[in-house]
């Protein structure tokens, strides 16, 4: 290991004192939340000795309650895919509100090129186009969907980077436009009955597989590539990034494009999982994706946070949702609690920042 310590007049660096990574805090929070639900399950009189995450029935073949774990990760996986992109946007000190409606618009568009001609021997009752668009190879709807996402992202990025529209406004406009596209595409009718290969993309645990795979890929990209370094640099100090020769505007367009491509992919997976596409899909997804990032320690002022943080943030949201159901609390309380947690996460982030500076 090279010598990285340059001791100077009274200032020496203690190598054993590595800074405590923020991700560990979130992991800790996650464990505490699980413990709380576990405790409620054990001691609350109306719960009758159930366990939240551990196996209570067949103790011999497994430790965990896989069914509940599966539900938790499945619930967060699709929004989590969106959150991976939104994380990158937030690291540049931007925001993307358009992802929820983009999920719906992409679901509609992709699904209409993924329909199957015959359903139980009868012509597809939801057919949108003629037979030319039926039974196409799965690559066709996927490429069309992702291209649509890339286009929306390029428009978002251009408005933000070149026309200097505040990201909140630019993507709020795109939020409405995408919802409009989703409604207009089939005149409000659902598009259904996909080919088997399309239906496979979101079947079973596939959404979790995509989420985990994409999270690993983007964590590596953010840590080890020029793209990642420049994304952090722009969020840290945009002017410095520009003076250092980074093409800030082009880079921002790329970040918004990647975010929208990920949201579009989430739309494909969601429509595949549901075997149908509807214009109202993905409601509040953009907000939950942002919440995952914020809970995961991504600073809204840019420059700080990691994909791992967002994945943990997603897990926190998933565990809370599932935990509230488990202790039989109403959905309305879930929303209130999640709101409180998001605000708490932002307060924590500001507190951390103040202590740092």
């Amino acid at each position: 290991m090279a010598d990285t310590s340059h001791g100077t007049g009274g200032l020496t660096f203690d190598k054993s004192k590595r800074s405590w990574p923020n991700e560990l805090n979130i992991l800790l929070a996650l464990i505490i939340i699980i413990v709380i639900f576990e405790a409620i399950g054990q001691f609350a009189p109306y719960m009758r000795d159930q366990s939240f995450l551990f196996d209570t029935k067949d103790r011999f073949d497994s430790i965990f309650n896989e069914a509940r774990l599966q539900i938790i990760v499945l619930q967060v996986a699709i929004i989590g895919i969106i959150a991976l992109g939104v994380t990158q946007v937030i690291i540049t000190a931007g925001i993307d509100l358009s992802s929820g409606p983009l999920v719906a618009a992409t679901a509609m568009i992709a699904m209409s090129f993924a329909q199957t001609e015959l359903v139980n021997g009868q012509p597809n009752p939801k057919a949108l186009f003629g037979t030319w668009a039926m039974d196409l190879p799965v690559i066709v709807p996927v490429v069309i969907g992702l291209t649509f996402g890339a286009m929306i992202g390029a428009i978002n990025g251009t408005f933000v980077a070149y026309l200097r529209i505040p990201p909140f406004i630019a993507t709020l406009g795109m939020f409405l436009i995408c919802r409009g596209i989703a409604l207009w595409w089939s005149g409000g009718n659902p598009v259904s009955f996909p080919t088997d290969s399309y239906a496979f993309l979101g079947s079973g645990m596939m959404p979790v597989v995509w989420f985990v795979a994409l999270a690993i890929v983007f964590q590596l990209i953010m840590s080890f590539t020029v793209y990642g370094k420049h994304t952090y640099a722009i969020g840290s100090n945009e002017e410095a990034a520009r003076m250092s020769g980074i093409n800030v505007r082009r880079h921002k367009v790329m970040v918004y494009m990647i975010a929208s491509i990920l949201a579009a992919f989430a739309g494909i997976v969601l429509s595949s999982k549901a075997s149908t596409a509807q214009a109202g899909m993905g409601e509040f997804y953009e907000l939950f994706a942002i919440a995952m990032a914020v809970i995961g320690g991504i600073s809204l002022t840019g420059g700080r946070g990691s994909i791992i943080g967002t994945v943990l943030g997603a897990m926190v949201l998933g565990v809370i949702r599932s935990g509230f159901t488990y202790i039989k609390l109403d959905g309305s309380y879930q929303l209130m609690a999640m709101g409180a947690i998001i605000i708490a996460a932002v307060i924590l982030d500001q507190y951390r920042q103040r202590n740092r500076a």
Partner: protein
Amino acid sequence: MSEDIVLKTEDLTKHYGGVHALEGADFEMRKGEHVAIMGDNGAGKSTFVRQITGVEQRTRGKVWLYGDEVQFDGPLDAREAGIETVFQTLALADDLDVPDNLFLGREKTYADWLGPFRLLDYKAMRQATIDGLNRTAVKIPNIRNTIRNMSGGQRQCVAIARTATFHSKLTIMDEPTAALGVQETAQVENIIRTLKDEGEPLILISHNMRQVLDLVDRIVVFRRGRIVANLKKEETDGQDIVAYITGAKTGEEYMEHAL
């Protein structure tokens, strides 16, 4: 034009709306020369630097670097043409560490076929950073620290190390010792002397009269956006320079524009 002239500007002008921050600057420096730019706050010194380094686009005028007329679209162009700059604002990314900042915008990479996703060669950058810091004798407690956690002087040292680590055709330092302690100032002055010995030309912007008279060959004075004096070090002294800075005197060749 002679290759001997490192930098030449003619009628270099920058207006910000109604603010005439820089007006008709004719400037010239020769190979190996170290030139100081002095002038009161708001005189237009940093504006002059921003026009040369492509950070901003000039209102009018021409710039030549080593005899070639240049028009940089951005800071990267200027840097690729061999101009290294310590900006007054330092231009550091707070959330990144020292090697990241030294190599920001010109990272050492491998697998370049990956385009924007090419891989960072952290090891090489860290080694080059340590070498650079050793050569310039700049002391940073821990290069893995983010810039955010550093003192003003340490940040300035990082910005200076960034220019001094790379060989350049022209180095520009905008108030490099403004926030530095006695020892650190001496270090920076040593870096500047090293550049002089190596024949690398330098433009130094400074308010420190002793430093300027110690280090450079020639002093150019700015006042209210205009160049008002061009003084050889041997033919001037502190009082004389102050007279130009405050407007008590104006160089003969600049009289026609005097306010």
